[in-house]
């Protein structure tokens, strides 16, 4: 029975780790906020629209206030040397969220306590030349490079 329990917990831990790892496409550390890491958690493409989801995790001991404007996010098609910005609605607001303020097309502004996390999403056009991979830049974090689109 003892060995059965060990096996149970072992497999459980393995299964948990497997699912947890599968959640993240790429992680980048912040170059501004100590202890923060951004996970690119999901990429979806529909109607030539690229939707990116991120989760910002605070792995540090101190709380952090994260703030950036969506206008400063962009995607690069490194093969064709082109840069794409988030899509904007008819009112000039970036199609991204959650947004705290409306000016400058909206900004992400969250207080993230130690051990906590917060997510956001952004919609971009799929690069016109359909590259196999892109680079993604989020203010305050090192760039996500060679992110496959397939």
């Amino acid at each position, binding site marked *: *029975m003892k*060995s*059965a*329990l060990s*096996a*149970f917990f072992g*497999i*459980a831990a393995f*299964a*948990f780790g497997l*699912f947890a790892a599968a959640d993240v496409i790429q992680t980048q550390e912040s170059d501004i906020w100590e202890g923060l890491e951004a996970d690119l*958690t999901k990429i979806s493409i*529909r*109607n*030539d*629209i690229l*939707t990116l*989801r*991120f*989760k910002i995790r605070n792995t540090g001991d101190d709380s952090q206030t994260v703030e950036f404007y969506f206008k400063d996010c962009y995607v*690069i*098609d490194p093969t064709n*040397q*082109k*840069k*794409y*910005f988030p*899509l*904007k*609605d*008819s009112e000039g607001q970036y*199609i991204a*969220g*959650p947004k705290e303020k409306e000016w400058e097309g909206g900004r992400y502004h969250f207080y993230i306590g130690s051990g906590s*996390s*917060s*997510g*956001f*999403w952004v*919609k971009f*056009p*799929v*690069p*016109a030349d359909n590259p196999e991979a892109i680079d993604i830049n989020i203010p305050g974090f090192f760039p996500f490079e060679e992110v496959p689109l397939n």
Partner: protein
Amino acid sequence: MRAKTILCLCVFSLLLFWSGRASPLFALEEEEITIPPEAHQKAIEALKALGPGRGALELTYKVLTIEGITRGLTARIEKIQAALKELGAEETETDYRIELPGDILFDFDKWTIRKDAEETLSKVGEVISAYQHPVIITGHTDSKGSESYNLELSKKRAESVKQWLVDQAGIDSKRIETMGKGESEPVAPNTNPDGSDNPEGRQKNRRVEIRIRKN
């Protein structure tokens, strides 16, 4: 029996974690990044408005050469080369040798630099400035007059050239060494074979030699 228990526990654990991902515990993160349903339609309209280029900006970069410095250096080198040519400088492995006629630099029996000579000496100054190495200025005379007098005159003339270069061309005086050779090193005969005067030869012997070390 034991194997069945282990298998059941494993299946149970997988189900537990699979279902747990949809439970409120995990859904909390999902809720944070819920995308409003209308966002996609807005995005489609935004994409249409962008046209075929999709709002892309071309990434451009420039390779900038430090043109100012390059241009400045090139111009300076060309100027120095031109000056050397005009001065009739002779280049050896170790130095540049410039020979200036004494009659251009000085009036007869004088060691004061003539006004007309300043343009020539300015060019010498440019060349000396281009190299940070020692310079030797040597005065020579013809054979007219006593040997000791000519030696002294040649020293004074070499010293005058040095002083002009220090005062007018801003050359560090420590870089320049002077010497006088008097009439001891003629480059042409002072007299003809029949013993008569050779003015052309003497004119060539009245000179100041400037050696600029290249390293």
